[in-house]
């Protein structure tokens, strides 16, 4: 089974992201990483491809720096990558991004598309459903568990109160939650072989997308600092902490 993994290179979650003068997130020249949420998607994709003797294609959109994210995916075990880089895609909204990813994915046959539930930087949480709709596919989203048997998927869909079992024929789009599996660390061998694996570099026009189809329809028009919270009191555990906390609970009338 050939699996497409949606991957995104994001500013390092441990760093301090910044807005540029154009009110867009600064993505170039900052320390970045493969989105931690995507590692669960990749792990799920690798397991499914390995069990069926298929390949994993890592598809990403982003600036030149995002090549590092694709290479991380290759180091984890993905077989090949596609990176779409285009100055015209800076500030893309989710519709533009979904169009680009759908166009890139549909260039070759596939059985399954797997992504994380949302990115760590934008956290919109709707992109995979939009990709599914553009490709005319069903989707089994928010999966904490994914199993494949023959041409059918069985997933455990996270709900507000527990989980649902959702079944779905392939091809389909699946998103997996954080904690769905244990993403593997790239081995030294994996890191070395990643450098020899094929990565196709494309622009929006290579995908046949017009300037109109790749123009974002939203933008930040005002930025304000969030009001700083007045500093509270910090004490040591030895300062009768339990009693102080209980005082605050009593003040709030919850005990």
């Amino acid at each position, binding site marked *: 089974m050939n699996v497409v993994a949606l991957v995104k290179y994001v500013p390092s979650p441990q760093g301090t992201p910044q807005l540029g003068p154009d009110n867009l997130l600064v993505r170039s020249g900052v320390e970045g990483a493969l989105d931690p949420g995507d590692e669960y998607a990749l792990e799920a994709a690798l397991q499914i491809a390995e069990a069926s003797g298929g390949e994993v294609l890592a598809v990403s959109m982003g600036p030149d720096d995002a090549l590092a994210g694709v290479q991380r995916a290759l180091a984890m075990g993905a077989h090949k990558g596609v990176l779409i880089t285009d100055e015209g895609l800076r500030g893309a909204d989710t519709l533009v991004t979904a169009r680009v990813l759908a166009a890139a994915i549909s260039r070759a046959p596939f059985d399954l598309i797997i992504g994380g539930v949302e990115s760590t930087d934008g956290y919109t949480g709707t992109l995979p459903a*939009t990709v599914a709709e553009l490709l005319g596919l069903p989707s089994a989203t928010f999966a904490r568990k994914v199993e494949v048997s023959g041409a059918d998927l069985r997933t455990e*869909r996270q709900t507000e109160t527990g989980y*649902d*079992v959702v079944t779905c024929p392939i091809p389909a789009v699946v998103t997996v939650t954080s904690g769905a599996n244990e993403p593997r660390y790239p081995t030294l061998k994996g890191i070395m072989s990643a450098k020899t694996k094929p990565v196709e570099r494309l622009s929006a026009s290579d995908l046949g997308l017009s300037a109109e189809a790749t123009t974002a329809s939203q*933008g930040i028009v005002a*930025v304000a600092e969030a009001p700083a919270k007045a500093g509270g009191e910090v004490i040591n555990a030895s300062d009768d902490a339990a009693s102080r*906390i209980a005082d605050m609970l009593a003040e709030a009338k919850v*005990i």
Partner: protein
Amino acid sequence: MIWVYADVSEAGASPAALELLTKARELGGDVAAVALGPGANAASAELGLHGASTVYVSDDAVFSDSVGQPAAHVLAALVAEHSPELVLFSTSYDSRDVAGRLQAKTGSTLMSNASDVLALDRARTEILGGTKIVDVELRGPSPHIVLVRPKSFVAEPSGGTATVVQVAAEVPDELRAARRVERHAESASGPKLEDAKVVVSGGRGLQDPSNFSMLDELAAAIGDAAVGASRAAVDAGWVPYSYQIGQTGKTVKPEIYLAVGISGATQHIVGMKGAKRIIAINKDADAPIFGLADLGVIGDLFEVIPALTAEVRARRGL
């Protein structure tokens, strides 16, 4: 015209739908709601009471038995017929699927995680870990699609009644492919996370899943308290995803939020900074959570929590 896509179940309309209707009313103009799935007709009175002049409903089980596609299909047909300028969704799992698909069908722009809606073409959100508040202008084809975090507004009834319009569930078979075949509710004793007056939340500092029982005991001693977790604890597989509080996960606004062994990553803060009082216990004096806490305790949670549980029990005469 503003529409609210209301999550409904046999239990009624979701609280978030009533919050969105209250906001939509405030923005002015005609407000309608769309409710699809079992419980929709029963929920229509409440939706009308909160500001919907019209509620488009179908009780058909296809909307809950199949994921995403049937609701998006029927919603898109209604949108094409009535041309709302803005459709508001909550950020629930089901709503995210429907909104994402609607975007592909209408070619509209979509904004998620909004904390406020300012106009038909403008919404507000907090980014960079809640340090910046940004207003986003929405352009392009109607309707603009905005997903709003739960508890962004307080639901208030308008006293209105809605005209209820039955919608035919004309859903082709190929759009019923992703099927919900089993439902499992994980039993949790005590109040729900979103409703509890006190939330006791655990993070990586708990070191081991079994230590969450300490938090369960504290929550039980307090009474109206629920146990939550940071993403780190959920990612580690210690507690289910349904415990997660943060950017990914639930938003809570309790009277007291007790962060236990949680460093305060931006991802977590987004989901809990609306709490009235925040108490943090962490052994690392530099943990960012202390910048947010009304009361910070630097020290060993394995000493503080059992002592606190004993203190609360003593004060409540348990």
